[in-house]
């Protein structure tokens, strides 16, 4: 039996990637995910630019996780320059970060993943077949984007975030309005959990090393130490010991490996490593979805995003309550304490751990930069999953195999523009 699957530019993913699978004589000969996105060169483009521009340039790496890139960028510059953020700035950063997490997760589960389960090619036919689902998704996405807009001007690309704090502050009435909508939005969040708990998630199961950030006092999104499900724990500054970036010819995105041949980052890794710190309502959602750590079913990465939608919505309400209790006070950005230096900024963007590592010269210009993107960290693990999945689905018709593999790619929620496009089938 020989089969060849060759998906050119996988659809409903961010960026350009191809799936190539070749089976000859019942044996898997080739199994690759090619990243064919054009090379972007952001790290080199930063050199010689003022550090204050870095977060504005790097947010342009990705339209979906623009706020995440800006946050990692700002944390890298702040670490390099000895800047200590005020509590208010930290709260505002967390709030807008939750906005982006919600926006990205809602986009992914409703518009990119759900069509596969409902047997359609996009969300557009769902608008007539399941209007209540589509309207709910649009409502949730709008609220998420509005959180970002209130704090930072817009989600893609944030404006008011700067080294040391913010250049604009939300009004009390704007925060009160967001709070009211988040409380009312609980009904949408609950309906989302119920919908995704009812879907027939593929049972494919393969244990791997799960890598995420962790913090002692909260479910980590910004800052923290690196922790892995294989027992490693290390300061974020030592990220290179985990990521070990290397180049492979079929991909313009670099690959990574740690203790095993590959590791996984993202919502499922965060869920596995930091489950205890989830909001109680998020834990309830996990129970409905049948999830308790350690979950090793890759497709449930999208379900872990549903759990995080609950967590981020609830935590956003708490943050707004704290901000409203103290009042939001316009303040100048926290001062820069040294003229140049080296700093590592880390955060958990929707697709996993993101690292920006900067070197800033005495003249305030960038002299070096290294960015480690979640999708790159997942590429090796995706290929390992493909290699494990293909033998299990060999008996299926080629069209079904292709769909299963595309669904696997989408489960990772790859963001390929960041990491630097899925299928045409041919039976031999």
């Amino acid at each position, binding site marked *: 039996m020989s089969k060849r699957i060759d998906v050119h530019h996988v659809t409903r993913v961010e960026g350009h990637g191809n799936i190539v699978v070749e089976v000859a004589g019942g044996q898997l000969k080739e199994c690759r995910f090619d990243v064919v996105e054009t090379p972007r060169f952001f790290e080199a483009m930063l050199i010689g630019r003022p550090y204050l521009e870095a977060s504005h340039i790097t947010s342009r790496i990705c339209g979906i996780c623009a706020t995440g890139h800006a946050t990692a960028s700002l944390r890298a510059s702040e670490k390099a320059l000895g800047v200590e953020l005020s509590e208010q700035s930290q709260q505002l950063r967390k709030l807008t970060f939750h906005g982006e997490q919600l926006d990205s997760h809602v986009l992914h589960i409703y518009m990119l993943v759900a069509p596969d389960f409902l047997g359609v090619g996009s969300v557009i036919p769902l608008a007539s077949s399941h209007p209540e689902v589509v309207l709910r998704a649009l409502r949730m996405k709008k609220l998420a984007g509005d959180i970002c807009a209130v704090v930072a*001007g817009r989600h893609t690309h944030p404006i008011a975030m700067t080294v040391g704090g913010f250049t604009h502050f939300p009004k009390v009435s704007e925060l009160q309005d967001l709070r009211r909508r988040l409380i009312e939005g609980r009904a949408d969040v609950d309906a989302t959990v119920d919908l995704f708990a009812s879907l027939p998630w593929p049972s494919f199961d393969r244990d791997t090393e799960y890598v995420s950030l962790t913090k002692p006092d909260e479910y980590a999104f910004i800052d923290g130490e690196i922790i892995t499900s294989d027992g490693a724990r290390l300061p974020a500054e030592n990220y290179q010991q985990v990521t070990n970036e290397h180049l492979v010819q079929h991909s313009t995105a670099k690959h990574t490996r740690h203790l095993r041949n590959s590791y996984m980052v993202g919502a499922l890794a965060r869920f596995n490593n930091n489950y205890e710190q989830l909001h109680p309502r998020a834990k309830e959602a996990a129970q409905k979805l049948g999830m308790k750590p350690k979950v090793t079913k890759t497709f449930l990465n999208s379900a872990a995003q549903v759990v995080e939608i609950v967590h981020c919505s609830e935590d956003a309400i708490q943050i707004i309550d704290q901000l409203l209790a103290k009042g939001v006070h316009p303040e100048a950005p926290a001062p820069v304490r040294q003229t140049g230096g080296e700093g590592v900024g880390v955060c958990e963007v929707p697709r996993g751990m993101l690292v920006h590592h900067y070197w800033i010269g005495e003249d305030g210009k960038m002299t070096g930069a290294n960015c480690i993107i979640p999708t790159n960290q997942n590429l090796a693990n995706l290929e390992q999953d493909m290699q494990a999945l293909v033998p299990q689905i060999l008996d299926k018709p080629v069209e079904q195999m292709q769909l299963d593999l595309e669904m696997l790619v989408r489960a990772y929620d790859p963001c390929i523009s960041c990491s630097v*496009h899925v299928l045409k089938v041919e039976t031999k």
Partner: protein
Amino acid sequence: MSQNGKPKVAFFDFTSCEGCQLTVVDSLQDHPELLNAVEIVQFREAMSEKGEDYLVAFIEGSCTRASDEARLKKIRQQAAVVVALGACAHLGGVNTLKYLHPLDEVRQYVYGDKAGWYDTYDARPIEAVIPVDYFIPGCPIDRDEFLATVKALLLGKKPPIPDYPVCVECKLKENTCLFTLGKVCMGPVTRAGCKAICPSYGQSCEACRGFIPDPNDSSMREVLAKHGLTPDEITTMYTMFTTYQVREKLMQRASTHE
């Protein structure tokens, strides 16, 4: 035109962050009725269906490799109307920051001794490769401007993209001028239409929408110098999204002096 009388529209992406296509998705949040007015036949980021018969092509991203040129030309052959969507397609955008360093150095820096594996050249706006009918500026595009452009195209009119500078919109919003706050800003020479969103959130305009027709560059540079910027810092201000335009102008000037 499809049988249902709706114009067929397709979205394409080249080198970009895909943030403008996301902004298109965002504009649908408030205006889902837009889907009743057009038929989207291709939008890789959001749908699996793929139609090659389209009237209007919205293109996001800049052209950064030889293989992009063939793809752009094929789109131009099919589409009656080509619209550049956002700064990368319209101007070259942040991708053109590569020009500020020798290309070999840039490739070496990111991909080391494996740099030869990957195909790339200097980023350019799509207009450098194919004729473009209209553009929607911005990084990212403005939702309202996208909707206004689609409306105009449906009515067979020219899309209403302003020719005046960001300062006009900033004044209308009654913002305090950033220059009076000791900051500098590209608003005086930059095309409006963004509702002066950056100055409204306390940040300098970075010229992501490109320059107005006939900007008074020498005055702009004088003002920036008066506010303490060195020639090098002025170049930095002028090049975040618009390195391609600044370089083309320098080259034109060089050739007229010869």
